[in-house]
């Protein structure tokens, strides 16, 4: 049996009080709840404060480029369908830096993959510029008159795109969050958990208190399989921010296209030399 201890304890480079700590703990709990041993898990991250999280966990890690966690995660999953692959990064990394393009493409594909977005609504590591999810009007050094563009709502776009699992969590609600992450990992398909995360150093608008005031759990009645209802809930993002599984559906898995993946990791499959010899004859 896997325990929290198996996932180790590390010193972090995060600011004291940062929402990242809550997310890290929730993730560990979720992995334990899913009964996954560290070596079965591959964490794929981009670059940012959030993207350091996989270094603070005992697991396989691929810490790639800023904005490019998803393609790397997809590549790894297509090479070894036995791995539990979790892409974990910040809002800047997943929804900015071209990441958005990969985000939409990932949702369209629907591999068995979990996406954890530490959504602090700011670029933390680079010291506080607006991110795609920054609240309109947020003043930063690079947005002295306040962020102008309307914020990206990843949950609404994901539901619109027909993503197969869309949830929103909050770093300050550990139990619920770890439940959402566990459900996402167990879900067969691409699962997004967008996680509201206070950044105590740079986001002075969306603080713990702010989230406490704005976040509410979805009511029991919410039926995540009802797309229309889900879409309505997903568009709610202002005075009230709903938390929970917003949408869930079954869609064919991308991996199923590839017969060869039913035979396990590609690294373990022999090159069929005989077949190659034969198929070359087609060119004669």
């Amino acid at each position, binding site marked *: 049996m896997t325990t929290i201890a198996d996932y180790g304890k590390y010193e972090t480079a995060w600011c004291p009080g940062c929402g990242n700590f809550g997310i890290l703990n929730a993730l560990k709990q979720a992995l334990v709840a899913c009964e996954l041993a560290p070596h079965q898990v591959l964490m794929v991250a981009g670059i940012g404060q959030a993207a350091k999280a996989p270094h603070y966990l005992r697991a396989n890690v691929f810490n790639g480029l800023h904005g490019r966690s998803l393609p790397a995660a997809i590549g790894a999953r297509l*090479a070894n369908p036995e791995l539990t692959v979790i892409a974990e990064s910040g809002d800047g990394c997943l929804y900015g830096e071209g990441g958005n393009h990969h985000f939409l493409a990932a949702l369209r594909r629907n591999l068995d993959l979990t996406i954890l977005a530490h959504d602090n609504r700011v670029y933390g590591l680079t010291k506080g510029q607006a991110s795609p999810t920054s609240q309109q009007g947020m003043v930063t050094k690079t947005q002295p008159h306040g962020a102008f563009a309307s914020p990206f709502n990843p949950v609404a776009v994901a539901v619109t795109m027909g993503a197969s699992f869309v949830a929103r969590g909050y770093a300050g609600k550990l139990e619920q969050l770890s439940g959402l992450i566990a459900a996402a990992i167990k879900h067969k398909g691409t699962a997004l958990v967008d996680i509201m995360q206070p950044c105590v150093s740079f986001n002075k608008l969306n603080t713990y208190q702010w989230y406490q005031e704005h976040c509410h759990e979805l009511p029991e009645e919410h039926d995540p399989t009802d797309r229309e209802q889900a879409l309505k809930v997903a568009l709610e993002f202002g005075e009230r921010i709903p938390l929970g599984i917003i949408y869930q559906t079954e869609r064919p898995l991308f991996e199923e296209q590839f017969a060869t993946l039913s035979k396990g990791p590609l690294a373990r499959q022999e090159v069929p030399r005989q077949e190659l010899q034969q198929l070359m004859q087609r060119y004669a």
Partner: protein
Amino acid sequence: MQQDIQILIGGEAGQGLVTIGQLLGKALVRAGREIFASQTYHSRVRGGHNTFAMRVGAGPFAAPRESIDILVALNAETVELHRPQLTKRALIIADAAFAPELPGAIAVPFGELGPEKLWNTAALALLGQVLGLQEQQLYQAVEATLGQKKPELLEENQEIMKKSREWAKAHLPEHDFVLADATATADSTQKRLLLNGNQAIALGALAGGLKFCAFYPMTPSTSVVLELITHAETMGCVIEQAEDEIAAINMAIGAAFAGAPAMVATSGGGFALMAEGISLAAMTETPVLTVVAQRPGPATGMPTRTEQGDLEFVLHAGHGEFPRAILAPGSIEECFTLTARALALTERSQSPVFLLTDQFLADSARPVTPFELNGITPVRPGDDPEKVATPYRRYRLTPDGLSPRLLPGLSEHLVVADSDEHDEDGHLSEDYGLRTAMVKKRLQKLELLKEEVTAPTLEGDQDALLLVCWGSSLGPVREAAAILRDRGLKVGTLHFSQVWPLLPEQFLDLLQKADRVVGVEGNATGQFARLIRRETGFTIAELINRYDGLPFTADFLLERLETQRAETGDR
């Protein structure tokens, strides 16, 4: 030596000229002939002016000719455009409506032979008659190709072929293009493969153990992937069209990290987008093969033409310093062997490796002896988890710079890779000493690459005129040299099928010994010559460059050698 025949089929995109060309090629190869087929096409789907050229005769050939012996004109424009290239003995097969008033013109009443969509088949049959190919040989080629895809069309094709043959027998003028049996040099009992460069690359990759390829369509690289997709299921490969080239390279790196020998194929602008990913592969020490099929730049440039203009870019692409190898095949056979080698090399050195080719090589086809698979060991990714020192460290510092590479999930060891500077465990570190050690470790792997450098190939004389070239220019350069030698001159060729790393001890003395060294490159500035100077201090003072989008030919080279000699006096 009997003169070879250069056939050129010209017309609009959509008129089916590639189909004729391929069928004719197949038939000729099966009949034991030597051929060389190449294409030019526009960056559009219909219309424009495309050509399919085929050389037939006592080859082997490795380049097209500029002059034309048989012109098959599917439209009037073709006659106009190619008239200046016609040899004295040339035949022109063209519709009666626009056949020119020239001695060799054969005005064909295509309308009488069959419906317009089959005129290409008619032209094929006419060509067959001109060349003296047996009806059966040509029809079998049609059957083999069309039979699989559209069997219902076979009959009407057969009919028009018959009719065309008969018309030809009755109306063909005197000419000397019937292939004498003597020209069938190859042993026709051994089935040769008719392959173009991109097909050979795909087969080489499969032989080398490829398991994963991600791509975004880009001419002239796409056909490598098309070929892979055809065989993906049989060969157990996963091929994925990515949302862009950035995704493609990052997917390939993710897949390689997780144990699949992986490659990407792209061209100019697509490669530019991959530069950051190349740097990631280097930093994480993840093997990945990048096939770059060059086309004229900058920017979108000429998407369907050829150039050797990206050598320096590929050599330096990616920020930061790290070793790499660049292979540049000069022939269809090398497309196959070097691709397999490249896959092995990237795994062996845990460093990025490149295959640098171009539209000319990609799209030109030649019959080759079936490849020997026994000499090629498919890549076995990763090290044995039973044999690594524990605790396992992905970036353990070792004398040769190679660290044990385990694959995540395939043992209980944890594998941690990082794009930041990192410690031996793969966790990010800002320690100055570690930084120095890790830089040295990565650069040390250049030595491994140097151990496996393919030496340049010298052919002919060493001390008079030496033509230096790389990659796809090999064929035309060798042909020009052969012609000069026939004229009694002493000529050597030195061809690099690996352009990085360079080992001066493999070639510097040759450069120094020759009387006249001429660099031949399909670009405007002489990038390889600059690289030679950077690495050896030796200046290749005389260059022949071509950068109009077309490949070198022997004719082009001979002309340039002549004028340049005149210009530079008799030094």
